[in-house]
């Protein structure tokens, strides 16, 4: 097999419990987003658009839909022989079988995959983030610094900084300190959970970490602090564009709303850096004789007979006559029947709101209303 400059390892195995009902039956990276995409489309498209043709996707929690969606990777042009997408799940050996115990352990258990491709560098990605990034630029910075590890960072508002892993750097972008969720942050550069490792360093560190009884086998908690303690060359790569973690119901809703408006923070319409997806073929959507649509995204196969304001209507969703949908996200196949009113809500795939039923509230002090996949919301619920 030919030697690769860089391969990607995409961490897609977490349960994503903070998305509550949305990940009850489905892994977080396979959750629908933006009307027709699934969350994993964003990192996979970034890989394809950055010329990274080999991606290992580490799966563990409820992987069936995720595996089916990834398929052979053809939807992202990641299906060439000897490269492309490979799904990597926990497996059995002569010593038995064990699950992935942490982000670092998940990669450790798949070191054979990395060794088989024998790359110079390994890009480690998360499967729950929305952003558009040319990893080639980060790789160039990594090489220019002759770094062992490069961590992608972005400035966050100071008041939010204590929710993130915060990095302090010197004038040469070299990391001098890493504080996980500091109470009094001394910097506002937050780790995005995107790493480029020198492959040899990664292999050595993971093999050492695997036999360390005190390690929790986590990149942020164990591997990065150890590299810094050993004064290994760790650098930051500063990213300035739009980036969001969509791992909670609130951030999922807020990030969805960020796609709307006259000048959205995230441009879905870029021709040069397209977001690719593995969607089924559905016809154009239909807006009925009395439909009202105002500041929305509406995908193929949807049928709208009522009013939709400031919302995202995904593939094959339905909004009945006299129904109102506002500040909401309807996932694929969701149905809002005649006269129903849905406000600041997320309706899971094929979820149904029955006729004349009210679901959610425009009151922004209340939590976003959420109905899981296939849930039927009737009267009194």
């Amino acid at each position, binding site marked *: 097999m030919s030697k690769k400059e860089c391969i990607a390892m995409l961490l897609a195995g977490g349960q994503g419990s903070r998305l509550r009902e949305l990940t009850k039956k489905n892994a977080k990276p396979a959750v629908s987003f933006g009307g027709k995409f699934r969350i994993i489309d964003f990192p996979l498209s970034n890989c394809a658009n950055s010329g990274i043709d080999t991606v290992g996707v580490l799966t563990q929690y409820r992987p069936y839909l995720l595996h089916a969606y990834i398929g052979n990777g*053809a*939807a992202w042009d990641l299906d060439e022989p000897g490269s492309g997408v490979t799904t990597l799940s926990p497996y059995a050996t002569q010593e038995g079988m064990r699950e992935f115990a942490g982000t670092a352990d998940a990669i450790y258990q798949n070191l054979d995959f990395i060794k088989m491709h024998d790359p110079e560098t390994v890009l480690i990605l998360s499967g729950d983030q929305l952003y558009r990034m040319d990893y080639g630029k980060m790789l160039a910075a990594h090489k220019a610094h002759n770094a062992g590890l490069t961590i992608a960072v972005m400035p966050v508002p100071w008041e939010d900084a204590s929710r993130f892993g915060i990095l302090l750097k010197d004038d040469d972008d070299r990391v001098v300190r890493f504080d996980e969720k500091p109470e009094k942050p001394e910097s506002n550069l937050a780790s995005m959970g995107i790493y480029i490792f020198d492959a040899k360093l990664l292999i050595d560190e993971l093999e050492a970490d695997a036999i360390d009884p005190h390690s929790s086998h986590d990149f942020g908690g164990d591997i990065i602090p150890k590299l810094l303690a050993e004064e290994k060359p760790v650098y930051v790569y500063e990213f300035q564009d739009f980036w969001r973690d969509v791992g909670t119901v609130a951030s999922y809703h807020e990030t969805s709303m960020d796609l709307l408006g006259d000048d959205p923070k995230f441009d*879905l*319409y870029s021709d040069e850096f397209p977001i690719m997806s593995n*969607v089924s073929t*559905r016809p*154009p959507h239909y807006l009925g004789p009395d439909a009202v*649509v105002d500041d929305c995204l*509406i995908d193929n196969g949807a049928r709208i007979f009522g009013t939709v304001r400031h919302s995202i209507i995904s593939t094959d969703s339905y909004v009945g006559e006299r129904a109102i949908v506002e500040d909401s996200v309807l996932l694929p196949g969701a149905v809002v029947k005649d006269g129903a009113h849905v406000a600041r809500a997320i309706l899971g795939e094929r979820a149904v709101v029955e006729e004349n039923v009210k679901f959610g509230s425009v009151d922004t002090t209340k939590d976003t209303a959420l109905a899981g996949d296939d849930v039927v919301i009737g009267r009194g619920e």
Partner: protein
Amino acid sequence: MKNKAIGLITANYKTSVPCALSKRRPMAGLPFAGRYRLIDFPLSNMVNAGIRTVGLIVPQNYRSLLDHVGTGRDWMLDRKNGGLFILPGTVYGGAHEGFRFLLRDIIDNKALLIRDSADYVVLSGSNVIVNLDLAAAIEAHEASGNSATIICHRATAINDDVYGLKVEGDRVVSLTRGVKYGDLESIDYCIFNRDDLIDVIENFAQADYMALEEAMFKAEQAYQIGYYEFEGYAAGIYDAKSYYDRTMDIRRPEVYTALFNPDRTIFTKAHDAPPAKYFKGSVVRDSLVSAGCRISGTVRGSALGRGVVVEPGAVVTNSIVMQSCVIESGARIENAIIDRYNLVPSGTELRGTPDDILIKEKAEYV
């Protein structure tokens, strides 16, 4: 694996009325319903019936058609066993209107028929918009013991562009051009026993330009030809008027559901267009809108193809706007078909009438 049936689609015939939409592309490659092309219907009907070997007879101007079908991957026809076969069509078929299945086109591509061991061959044209349970029709043909079965429906209007069936009992005795209301009208899908079809083309190997059905009826051996009546939505596209009407039909819920039945997907070339975006102030009623559109203006009673931009203050009424057109601020379009890649500048009016639809030809890709 032995296939029960293989398919053969003719996409190289011209229709009776010359039409600006098909000046630079075969009818089979005509964009339809926002994201499809006419060829998607026969291809999808065949693969939805389990057919995995399909020959596509193409005309001389096949560029856009082949750009669309590619290796057949989007119809599951990119395969080791079987798959999509692009076959050369006669010039004669493209120069003379009215053919559905020209004997010479089948003779020239006999290899497809003799290299397979399937029992049946499904022939289809590419002008009829239908979502058909072809598997059920093949079963009915199998049970009938006939040599061929012509799939038909009851004509809903006078139409000179189609073929009517004259039947006696459950047998077809002749095919004639033109139908009136209530006649049995062919929808251009026929099922043949492969052996009988090979027999016919061998017996008529010298006949140059004869229609297949003519040969069937003329043959010394009396072939038994039956018919299978289809009761769902089926309607052909032969000119700009029927193209316009068929597109507008899809706004009717029963037609939308019949054609785009999720159990039998109409497949088409995959595109990654994001959802359509409606800006504040847009007014869109009774319209079909494809992914990738960005709409700020007013759209009524219309169908928009992929990636169409309707700027603020632009008004599109009772019209079809195909892929990638830009309707600039203040432009007005009514009773028109705007072919792909057109930019309609600010202040322009393009107006036809319900009886005389205005056609703006395809612009050069920029």
